[in-house]
């Protein structure tokens, strides 16, 4: 039998340190649902999602109880809907409403994939879908949207960058009476992964199998607790401790992923090795950075600590799982992390520092609340900067900023639940309007020529 210490360590991780499986996400290809008639297409889509995901929630709950490990979300990622719009034409919002109905039928809390991939240009269906995003997010509750506007291979589509600034603003305006929740469900990507299980950016890529199970792990609280045990260790000890802890966390993710795949008779795709915080105290990535020796997250030294953390999480996790994918690393969503919220509230953590941190974290500017009067061009400027970091560094970057309509720096915006709350952060008001208005495409960087 395994020794007592190891058993108690596992139980302690789950009960006291918030270890959980963040999400089991079923990826479902909707390419077989494409039809030139939008109503027929929606009918097939609804039928396929309900058939494939019929037992998803129940299976997740059974695994949760048998293994004693909380599985917070059961979700679905689908083929980018713009591909279906390309075949059917018509009003894309009809797809959003059908997806919403399917989400409610199968009991998942989000379906991701109201998406378009436009990094090199707009194909049929893309522009119509992008234009409809604010309305689709306002009229549904469980649908997430993402748009990929750049990649290391293709460069950055600046026309799409300009459009997305306006779309993010409109999404906030359309949901101003619901706490501006719209843009909290919208991610603008560079180098979007096709197998990411985490919302709001999950979609099922065209290269994926018909149906697949991807699992996202979590566990910032466990990493922090492990570091608390070595208060005087040097940085090599810190990196080793993070690695060992990430290995253990990921092994649980691998176990759950394989078990879920077996029970649902669907292939296992990947485990995403992410440290995903929640607003709960003790489940914060910022606190890990502070545990390493920063007075507060955002202090000089934060980027270095985050780089170490992100790298050690991957090194520890990669051996623990047979297939690693998705975003894999440390997330830094401001409104979903108690330590980040506190640091942003007292001004230690600024937008500029967060931008630097995104060069070494697993995604990008995430869940950042900005003043309600921030112009579309400035939002596009934020998107362009972030995409440039991703493009040049061959990594995924993303922007999920929320213009808080009617609010300004010093105010707070509440979303509720795991999306949390946060202060409105200062944004540099100098205008990039002329640059954004030029349009065109930033050429792919020299790093793309690897062949």
């Amino acid at each position, binding site marked *: *039998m*395994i020794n007592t210490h190891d058993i108690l360590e596992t*139980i302690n991780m789950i009960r006291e340190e918030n270890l959980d499986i963040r999400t089991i996400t079923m990826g479902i290809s909707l390419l077989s649902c494409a039809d030139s008639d939008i109503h027929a297409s929606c009918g097939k889509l609804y039928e396929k999602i309900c058939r494939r995901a019929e037992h998803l929630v129940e299976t997740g709950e*059974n695994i949760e109880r048998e293994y004693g490990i909380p599985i917070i979300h059961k979700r679905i990622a689908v083929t980018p809907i713009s591909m279906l719009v390309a075949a059917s034409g018509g009003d894309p919002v009809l797809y959003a409403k059908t997806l919403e109905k399917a989400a409610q039928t199968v009991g998942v809390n989000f379906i991701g994939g109201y998406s378009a991939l436009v990094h090199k240009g707009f194909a049929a269906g893309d522009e119509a879908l992008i234009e409809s995003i604010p309305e689709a997010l306002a009229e549904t509750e469980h649908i997430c949207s993402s748009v990929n506007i750049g990649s290391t291979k293709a460069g950055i589509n600046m026309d799409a960058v300009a459009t997305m600034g306006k779309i993010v603003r409109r999404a906030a305006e359309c949901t101003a009476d619901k706490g501006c929740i719209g843009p909290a469900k919208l991610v603008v990507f560079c180098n979007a992964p096709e197998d990411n299980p985490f919302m709001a950016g999950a979609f099922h890529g065209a290269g994926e199998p018909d149906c697949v199970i991807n699992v996202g792990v979590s566990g910032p609280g466990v990493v922090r607790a492990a570091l608390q045990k070595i208060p005087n260790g040097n940085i090599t000890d810190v990196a080793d401790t993070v690695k060992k802890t990430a290995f253990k966390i990921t092994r649980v993710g691998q176990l759950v992923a394989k078990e879920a795949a077996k029970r649902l008779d669907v292939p296992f795709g990947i485990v995403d090795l992410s440290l995903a915080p929640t607003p709960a105290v003790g489940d914060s990535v910022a606190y890990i950075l502070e545990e390493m020796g920063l007075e507060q997250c955002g202090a000089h030294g934060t980027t270095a600590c985050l780089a170490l953390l992100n790298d050690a999480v991957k090194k520890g996790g990669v051996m623990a799982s047979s297939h690693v994918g998705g975003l894999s690393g440390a997330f830094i969503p401001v409104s979903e992390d108690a330590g980040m919220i506190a640091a942003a509230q007292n001004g230690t953590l600024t937008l500029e520092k967060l931008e630097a941190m995104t060069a070494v974290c697993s995604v990008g500017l995430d869940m950042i609340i900005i003043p309600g009067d921030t112009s579309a061009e400035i939002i596009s400027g934020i998107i362009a900067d972030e995409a440039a970091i991703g493009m040049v560094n061959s990594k995924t970057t993303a922007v999920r900023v929320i213009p808080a309509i009617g609010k300004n720096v010093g105010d707070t915006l509440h979303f509720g639940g795991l999306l949390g709350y946060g202060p409105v952060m200062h944004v540099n008001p100098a205008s990039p309007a002329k640059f954004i208005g030029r349009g065109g495409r930033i050429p792919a960087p020299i790093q793309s020529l690897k062949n």
Partner: protein
Amino acid sequence: MHAIITVVGRDTVGILAKVSALCAKHNVNILEVTQSILQDMFCMIMLADVSACNVPFTALADEAEALGKELGLSINAMHEDIFNSMHRI
């Protein structure tokens, strides 16, 4: 299938008896028991074979948890694989 049942809390009379009675009631065979005092806490760990259990394992886990609440202890029944996967390569 094997399960690990853990009992952690303040030591009192009859803990082992009550947990093993629950196992016996549901036809669960106890394979191994270790017991120790860790950080001033009573700590008992049982390895049990639940393949012939007469209720679904999740129901057994719920009953174990409820028994823990009744006794003022923390009792968990979990599938052995979660410990194996985390601590064995």
